[in-house]
C-alpha cells in the first residue's frame, strides 16, 4: 500500500521543486537583467521647452548667415529670418533625424540627407518626411533672442 503512494507523491514533489527552481532562475535572470537594461538607458535631460536665450555668438551668426542652429536641452532648434520675421523650428528632420538648413533663396527648409523640404512653418512640402517640424516661438528684444516651445 505504501509503495504506490510513494510513487505518486514523488513526481509531484519533484515537479514542485522544478517549478520553484524555474521561478527562482527567472527571478534571478530578471534581477540581473533589469538593472543592466536600466543602466544602459541614459537619463533624459530636463530643461527642454523652457525659455532659452541665444548667445551673442549665435545671434551674430544669425545675422550673418540668415540662420543658426542652437541647442535647447536635448533638442536642436533652427532659428532663421524670413520676410522680416524671426522663425524657429525643430532642426531635426522628422524622416531620419538629419539636421535641416534654411535656404533663403527658396524660402524653405531643406534636409540634405534625403531631400526633404519644409515650408517656413515646418509643414512638409515634398520628400519623405512623415511629419512637420515642431514650431518654436522666437522673440527678439534688442540684441537678445529668446526661444520658447509653442504650446498647442
Amino acid at each position, binding site marked *: 500500500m505504501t509503495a504506490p503512494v510513494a510513487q505518486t507523491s514523488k513526481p509531484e514533489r519533484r515537479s514542485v521543486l522544478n517549478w520553484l527552481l524555474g521561478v527562482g532562475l527567472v527571478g534571478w535572470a530578471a534581477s540581473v537583467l533589469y538593472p543592466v537594461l536600466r543602466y544602459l*538607458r*541614459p537619463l533624459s535631460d530636463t530643461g527642454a521647452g523652457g525659455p532659452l536665450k541665444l548667445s551673442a555668438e549665435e545671434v551674430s551668426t544669425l545675422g550673418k548667415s540668415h540662420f543658426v542652429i542652437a541647442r535647447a536641452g536635448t533638442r536642436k532648434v533652427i532659428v532663421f529670418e524670413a520676410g522680416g520675421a524671426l522663425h524657429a523650428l525643430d532642426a531635426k*528632420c522628422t524622416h*531620419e*533625424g538629419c539636421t*535641416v538648413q534654411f535656404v533663403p533663396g527658396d524660402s524653405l527648409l531643406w534636409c540634405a540627407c534625403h531631400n526633404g523640404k519644409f515650408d517656413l512653418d515646418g509643414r*512638409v512640402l515634398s520628400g*519623405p518626411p512623415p511629419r512637420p517640424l515642431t514650431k518654436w516661438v522666437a522673440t527678439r528684444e534688442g540684441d537678445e533672442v529668446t526661444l520658447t516651445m509653442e504650446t498647442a
Partner: protein
Amino acid sequence: MIETERREAPPSVGERLYRWLDARFRLGRLVEFVRHKEVPVGGHSMVWYYLGGTTLFFFIVQIASGVLLLMYYQPGEATSYESIRYIIARVPFGWLIRSIHCWSAHLMIISLVVHMFSTMILKAYRKPRELTWLTGFGLFGIALGFGFSGYLLPWNELSFFATAVGTDSVKSLPVIGQWLLEVMRGGPDVTINTLYRFFALHIVILPLLIVAVMGAHLLFIQVQGMAPAMRHQRPDRPGLRFFPDFLVRDLLLWLVCLLLLCVLVYLLPYGPGIPGMEWELGKKANPLAPAYPGIKPEWYFLWVYQLLKEFPAHLGPMEGPQAALLLVTVLMAIWALVPFLDRRASRGQSSPMFTDLAVAALIFMAYLTLKAWDIGGGGTATKLPDPRATAWTCAWIVLGVSSAVDLVRFLVYRQRWLAFSGAALLHVALNGVFGVNYLVAGAIAMLVAIAGVVLTSRKNPAAGLEAPK
C-alpha cells in the same frame, strides 16, 4: 610509430616536445584527423572554397591593425578627431596603419559577401549544413556592426550624419524602438556619448561576439567538412588533401591578398573615392551644423539608404521609414532561413528557384546601389542630381549586365527557372525606363514572381518548393 622509426637517432627537440605534449593531450588523434581531412573536388571550381579563408585573413589584419590604432586613438569630444589626425599626420607610418585598417575592412566585407553568394548559388547551405549558414549569416551581421560602429570613431562630419541616419531608423521598431535608439546613442541624439558606446561596441563587445560565432562556424565546418558540389556528387572520388595540399594553396592566396592590400594602400591610401568607400578625414563633426548633400553610408549599406529614399512619407498605417525597415527585415529573414525553405536542396536535388533568388537579390541591390551613387544624374557641387535621369541610366546598366548574365545562364548552364530574376529585371525596367513609381513597380514584379512560383509548382511540382511527385 615514431618510436620504431627513429630508435637509433636521438629525438630532436621538436620531437621531444611533441611526445611530451602527446603524452598529456593525446595529440595523435588531432594529427590523425588532419591527415584524413579532405576538400571535395569536382562539380564546380575550387575557388569558392577559399573565400571563407580570405575573409578570415582580412579579419586577422583588422585585429592587428585595430590594436595598433588603439595605441594612439583617444575617444572624446576634443580628442577623437584630433587623435586620428595625429595618427595620419604625425605618427610614423600612422597613415599606413589606418589605411590598412580601412582597406582591409572593405576587402573583408567584399570577400564575405562573395563567399555568402557563392554558398547560396552552390547550395552549400543544404542539409546538414543549415547551422553553418546561420552562423555565417550571424557573422555577416556582426561584420556590418563592425563597419557601422567603426565608421563613427573618427568623429568627422560624414560619419556623424551617416550615424544619425543609421541609428534613427531603429526608432521605427515596434515596442523597443525608442528604448533601443536611446541605448544605442546614449541619449536622444547622436552626441559624443554615442561615440563612447560605439567605441565599446567596436573594440570589446563585437570582438567577443565574433570570436564565439566564428568559433561555432569553424567548428561546424571541421566536423562536417566542406560541402561537396550538388551536381557531380561522387563520394568515391578522392578529394584534395587538406594538409598540406589545400592549406598551402590557402596560404598562397593569403599572400596574394596581403600583396593586393599593400598595393591598394600604397596607391590609394584614402580609398578609391567612391561614395561609401573613402576615408578622407574631412572636417570635424559639429552637431549643430546642418547636413549637407552627398552624405552617404558605407557602400554595403547604400541599398538600404536608397530604399529609404524610395518610400513615401506614409504607406498605409505605417510611416515610410518604418515600412522600409520592415521590408528589409523580412528580406533578411528570408535570406537567413533559406536552408530551411529550400527543401529540394536539402534532399540533394537541384533547386533552380534558389539560384535565381540569389541572382534576383543581386539585381535588386545593384540597382539601388547604383541609384544611391547618383550615376547619370548629372549632379554637381551646386546642383542636385536629377533622380529621373539617375534611374534611367542605372536601369540600363543593370538591365544590360543582368540580361547578359541570364542569357549565359540560359544558354551555357541550361538554367530554365528565371522567374525571380525576370521579375527583378521587370521592376528595374518599369521604374527606371518607364518611370513607374518604385513601389508600384515592385508590387507588379512581386506578382510576376509569385505567379512564376505558382505556375511552376502546378506544371512541374519537382521544380517548385512542393514535394516532388
